């Protein structure tokens, strides 16, 4: 089977539309949470409380989309009893939106911490590492959503592979923060907040990686979760 899943070639036109709609809704939700993370990071780095509030408020819309998409998928499963690639599409959508919703939750954490830091009269401007990590994570999330839209397994694998770099960056930030806390205990409260933000960004990377694993499942029918990158490549080539 090629990468194109021929979503629009069913004998039932209505079924084509239902699958297209479900997939488009996932894209829409992906776009929203990407924006949420982007704004969350910006609010944090620029101590923008207005933007931080927006990030927190947007979560309601993301949650509602998750509920709507789940309902649509339930209807499709009940009425159409999809099989093969259609079934895999349903499963991958249901799983993907769970990860997207959690990415939204992580973005909210960024927003809330931005507000708390601002309340304490502090900001995170001096943390260049946090900016690096955040931008890296946003790039990966964006790539994962693009790979999902294109159903591109090769890109998905590259993204899965690059998650390791995010983990390394997160470890670096943690070390840096520990040093700062040891140097000046008055910084502990702020450093902890920054650490939670770094942790939230790192989790966004994990969720993006999960989405890439669902892409592999959707296109290739192989469940590559909890395997090494070499094992993934081997399975895909089988």
């Amino acid at each position: 089977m090629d990468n194109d899943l021929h979503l629009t070639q069913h004998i039932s036109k209505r079924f084509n539309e239902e699958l297209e709609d479900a997939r488009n809704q996932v894209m829409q939700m992906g776009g929203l949470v990407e924006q949420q993370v982007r704004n969350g990071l910006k609010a944090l780095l620029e101590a923008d409380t207005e933007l931080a509030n927006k990030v927190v408020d947007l979560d309601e819309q993301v949650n509602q989309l998750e509920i709507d998409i789940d309902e649509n998928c339930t209807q499709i499963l009940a009425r159409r009893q999809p099989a093969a690639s259609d079934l895999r599409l349903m499963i991958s959508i249901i799983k993907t939106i769970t990860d997207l919703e959690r990415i939204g939750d992580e973005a909210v954490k960024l927003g809330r911490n931005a507000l708390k830091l601002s309340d304490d009269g502090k900001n995170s401007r001096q943390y260049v590492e946090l900016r690096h990590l955040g931008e890296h994570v946003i790039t990966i999330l964006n790539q994962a959503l693009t790979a999902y839209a294109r159903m591109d397994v090769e890109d998905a694998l590259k993204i899965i592979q690059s998650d390791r770099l995010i983990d390394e960056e997160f470890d670096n930030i943690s070390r840096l923060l520990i040093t700062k806390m040891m140097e000046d205990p008055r910084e502990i409260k702020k450093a902890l907040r920054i650490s939670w933000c770094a942790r939230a960004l790192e989790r966004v990377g994990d969720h993006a990686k999960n989405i890439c694993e669902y892409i592999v499942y959707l296109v290739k029918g192989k469940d590559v979760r909890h395997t090494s990158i070499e094992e993934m490549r081997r399975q895909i080539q089988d």
Partner: protein
Amino acid sequence: MSDLSFTENLTSSDITIEGTVGKVVAEDAKMSMRNVNVFYADKQAIKNVSLDLARNQVTALIGPSGCGKSTFLRCLNRMNDTIPICRVEGELLLEEQDIYAKNLDPVLLRARVGMVFQKPNPFPKSIYDNVAYGPKIHGLATNKAELDEIVISSLQKAGLFNEVKDRLDSPGTGLSGGQQQRLCIARTIAVSPEVILMDEPASALDPIATAVIEELIDELKEKYTIAIVTHSMQQAARVSQTTAYFHMGQLVEMGKTEQIFTNPVHTLTENYITGRFG
């Protein structure tokens, strides 16, 4: 790919069949068919099909109308012998025995390889006589008590006994559709077959009667080897362990049911089970 080589290719739209993908050879085969070709006069209905029926398993044959799945099923107990213009070529073995051997009596073969049809077709006789008919003509019972036992145990295995035990003398045609079909299954079981062929056994039944038949199929596979032709993909997915997809007389793909319905290899299989244009 199977280890059997196929030379004939067939093109439908822009998708080509090259032999059969998947595993057609069973480790413990009850029946083995190799390079089977079937002709109705000049028209070829089955093209070089090879597959095994695994012992004590349910094998589902699926495919669009006219793909040859019923024709193939009917070869397995020589039901096609009744059609004068039909010619069957190839090797068809039941436990290593050639079922098309000249010295083999098709009537005895059909006792070993029983068949259940789409429409329940009980004889216009009592429920008891419907089931007793086969054992009587094959001389399987020496006295009335033995015959009674065969009838009762067959009705029990078919899951019908409790519903009809008080009216075994009533006509079989008076039962509901689902009950009639189970009566036909009891009639098939009564002659102790080794293989049961089912040609859309539940397509004329409502969902409840269908569920009862499917549950029965699941129980029957403990004792018998079963091949079922069905138009209902969900039914094939529910009852079978192996699925074979036929298309225009060829076996396109065969494999474990769990794989065929989640990740089929051939595009034609994918198109059929997902309802796409083939």
